[in-house]
């Protein structure tokens, strides 16, 4: 496989980072400020999409930013796996930008300039993670994402958000410095490189299985953004953020960056063969399965809609890790595909939660009875998102879950099949009643029968689009499927 040197990967990462400067400077003219955000978001999608054909043809792009450590430059590389994630993130950023404008203005939030600027930095970091050519670059952007999202999580600047912000940083920064950094150093000290290579770099390093197991666990817990238990506590806490932040960062960017980093390590640092050889897949599967089941059970008990979505996210993230841990072709494909499928589904659900809050001011599921009759589009979109995450056809989530099921069967791990089935039932149990009660239950609040209307168009359009995208992904998953195949079996 050959990579062309090109400035475009850097441009794709930097466009929103540079965009944050005019955003900060035009704080007094909100319309101008938001047009910078939209221009950067659109530019980002265009740049990423322009690199897609070359990647689909088996090529890619590279760019070295600086030589910092012998054998490990700060470098970007657009390969199939990075393109896969970048495509999801940049498209969804565009929708989120539209949605943010509607949401933040409807609620007359304070400090919107800081909000949009931090958002722009965060998406730069996300693409940086996607396009990292080695673990060091990935770590750099990973930390940049952690730090740039702190002002977003604590946006409210009240006592509760202060507490959540503290928890967020403690978990995320603590694990990355305490676990991921030493793991990275051990890999470097064993191999002299941190480059992502098909088949892994640790193969043939002569490390003992015990050391490999230690490094694997350090990485799994070190990238705590993936919400793997027991380091998941930050995610429900971070839900104090405004809903667009929760939807994009905690449904898509931040959490998927965690999963993406773990998958990178499994696929391109360890290599599936190496993990099979020393039989470490079960470590990953055990941790992931536990998280899936526990998170789904906890989700059932949550009355706050965003918190229920948060626990659902924790469970779904571990599907992706579980898929990778199966180490079979279908399992790994399913895990990777679920990044995209879950992203479109979950962002729709969060958008809906935000739209409900904007339109009706409700946060708790028990207060939403009958609301669906007043907000049919929102509730319909919510249903699409739920079905996709449960894994029902004809929605995108079915495809990734189908692959996961095949993966479990083909690797002869029927217990994992059981985990997947039970969890799908639980998913249905915590999502579908919301939809049902929204449409058919007696209105919880008499106001619902008169005053409440759908949320503003800036909110409604993005959530309908992402819901439709979830549907479309069932019929046209080809691009993502092809990218996943290329990433795993070039």
């Amino acid at each position, binding site marked *: 496989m050959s990579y062309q040197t090109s400035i475009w990967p850097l441009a794709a990462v930097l466009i929103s980072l540079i965009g944050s400067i005019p955003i900060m400077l035009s704080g007094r003219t909100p319309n101008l400020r938001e047009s910078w955000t939209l221009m950067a978001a659109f530019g980002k999608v265009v740049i990423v999409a322009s690199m897609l054909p070359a990647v689909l043809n088996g090529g890619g792009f590279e760019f070295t*930013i600086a030589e910092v450590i012998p054998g490990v430059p700060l470098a970007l590389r657009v390969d199939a796996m990075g393109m896969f994630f970048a495509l999801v993130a940049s498209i969804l950023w565009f929708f989120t930008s539209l949605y943010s404008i509607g949401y933040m203005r409807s609620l007359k939030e304070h400090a919107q300039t800081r909000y949009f600027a931090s958002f722009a930095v965060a998406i730069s970091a996300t693409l940086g993670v996607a396009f990292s050519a080695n673990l060091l670059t990935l770590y750099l952007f990973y930390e940049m994402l952690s730090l740039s999202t702190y002002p977003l999580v604590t946006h409210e600047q009240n006592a509760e958000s202060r507490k959540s912000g503290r928890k967020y940083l403690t978990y995320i920064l603590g694990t990355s410095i305490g676990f991921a950094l030493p793991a990275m150093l051990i890999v470097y000290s064993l191999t002299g490189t941190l480059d992502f290579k098909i088949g892994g770099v640790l193969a043939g390093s002569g490390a003992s299985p015990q050391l490999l197991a230690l490094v694997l666990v350090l990485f799994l817990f070190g990238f705590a953004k993936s919400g793997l238990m027991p380091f998941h506590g930050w995610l429900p806490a971070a839900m104090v953020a405004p809903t667009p932040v929760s939807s994009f960062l905690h449904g898509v960017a931040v959490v998927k960056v965690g999963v993406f980093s773990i998958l990178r390590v499994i696929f391109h640092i360890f290599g599936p063969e190496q993990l099979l050889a020393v039989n470490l897949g079960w470590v990953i599967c055990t941790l992931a399965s536990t998280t899936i089941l526990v998170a789904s059970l906890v989700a059932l008990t949550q009355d706050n809609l965003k918190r229920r979505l948060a626990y659902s996210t924790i469970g779904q993230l571990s599907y992706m890790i579980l898929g990778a841990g199966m180490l079979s072709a279908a399992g790994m494909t399913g895990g990777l595909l679920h990044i995209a499928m879950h992203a479109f589904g979950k962002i729709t659900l969060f958008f809906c939660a935000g739209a409900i809050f904007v339109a009706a001011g409700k946060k708790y599921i028990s207060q939403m009875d009958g609301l669906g009759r007043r907000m049919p589009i929102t509730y319909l979109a919510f249903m699409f998102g739920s079905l996709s995450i449960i894994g029902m056809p004809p929605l995108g989530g079915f495809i990734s879950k189908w692959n996961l099921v095949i993966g479990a069967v083909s690797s002869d791990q029927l217990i994992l099949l059981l985990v997947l089935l039970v969890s799908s039932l639980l998913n249905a149990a915590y999502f579908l009643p919301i939809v049902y009660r929204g449409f058919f239950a007696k209105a919880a609040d008499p106001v619902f029968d008169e005053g409440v209307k759908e949320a503003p168009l800036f909110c409604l359009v993005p959530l309908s689009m992402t819901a439709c995208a979830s549907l479309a992904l069932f019929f046209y998953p080809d691009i993502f499927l092809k990218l996943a195949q290329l990433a795993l079996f070039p």
Partner: protein
Amino acid sequence: MSSPSNLHMYVMAAPLLTAFFLNLLGRISRAYVAPMVLGSLTFSSVASLFLMGRVISSGGYSYTVGNWVPPFGIELVVDHLSALMLVLISFVALVASVSALKSVEQELPGKEHLFFTLCLIMISGLMGLVLTADAFNLYVLLEITSITTYGLIAMGKGRAPLASFNYIIMGSIGACFYLLGVGYLYLMTGTLNMADMARILPTIDGGAAVPTALGFILVGLWVKMAFFPLHGWLPNAYSLAPTGAGLIAAPLMTKVTIYLMVRVMFSIFSFDYLFLQNPLVQSGIVWVAAIAIICASGLALAQKDLRRMLTYIIVAEVGYMVGGAWLANSIGMTGAILHIVNDALMTLCLFLAVAAILYRIGSLELDKLQGIFRKMPITMAAFTVGAFAMIGVPPTAGFFSKWYLLLGGIEADQWGYVVALLFSSLVNAVLFFRIIEIGYFFKDGEHHGHEKRHEAPLIMQAPLVISAVALIVIGLGSGPLVEMIIKLALPGGF
């Protein structure tokens, strides 16, 4: 070795000569102070860059002052390491002085010429320290820098003279230890020139005297660099000193002393002697460094004042570098030397921010900093960069030296040291995010700050922003920095 030039003499002489004229002219008018201070330091900075370029292109050289041949004359050594230190000292001094001009004007009105006279002598003393190749000259210069620092600290308000007195006692004890060590070596070898000592030592049977000498010298230097548990003087001295004095001394003094430790270790003793003949001593010192890092970090957590907190972080960082130098592998030593540069810059950045905050707010107690992000956004942005560097967030400079130190610890199987470094990074994260949190949020129940934006004067902001940018530039450039300078600066044996 290339042919000698006089460039390094100009670097060193500019602040020294200016100091005397400054003392005279400054009495006539205060208007002379700023141009003379900045002029001489700019001259030194530019000249040191030329010197660095010369050393990179054609190698280092040894210089005999007044053509008196060593071991009798005074020998100066210009190599990659000392040239790098000269660049560091002159630039840090220059940038710090710009900001110090303003805070001295506020805190010590009418005494600017006295302050900067001492300051310039201290700076040229530091430059002399990194150049000298003579163990006794080193002592003299060490005392010159120390005595000027005592004076600078004593100019502060309140309990500052007491802190200075405390420092005098500790500093003098340290100096005595060092001098005793040098005395033993002189008795054994009959010379004070370091290279000469190194040549003679292997040929004689020193018995217990040589290790005793080494021990005395190390303890002396450890006191001077505030290596835990010999750090007692530092927190008070640097936090009670006039802001300007802390600004210039904090980034440079401890770092130059660490350089001296490396210089003395490898100019007089051999790699074999230091590390291989007594592995227990070597690993023991790394363990002490690990304990130092953990204890100093813990003490930093207990502080309620921003500047005192920073002083304990400095003490912890000293542990980083001592440990790195004693790991006995080239990666650790690379990390230690790189960290000398990075730590000087990080400390500079943070102390500049502190000076700016102090200038506007007048207090550094953590409670007083609520909502400061809104009031001084640029200062706090630069402070945040400095904080990230201390935590070790890439791509700031602090990450890369920590990377080498950690890697060196792993290669040397010194897991205690590795854990201490990671622990200290986490503690730094807690420390700085505590400040960031206080500054970012407002009083309880308040979502919007009511303070208007009120930044420090431009003359204090400019050096601060420059130092913050430097942290990122040096971080991204750490590859070439290590390849072109530090690899060549490693002492023989690595």
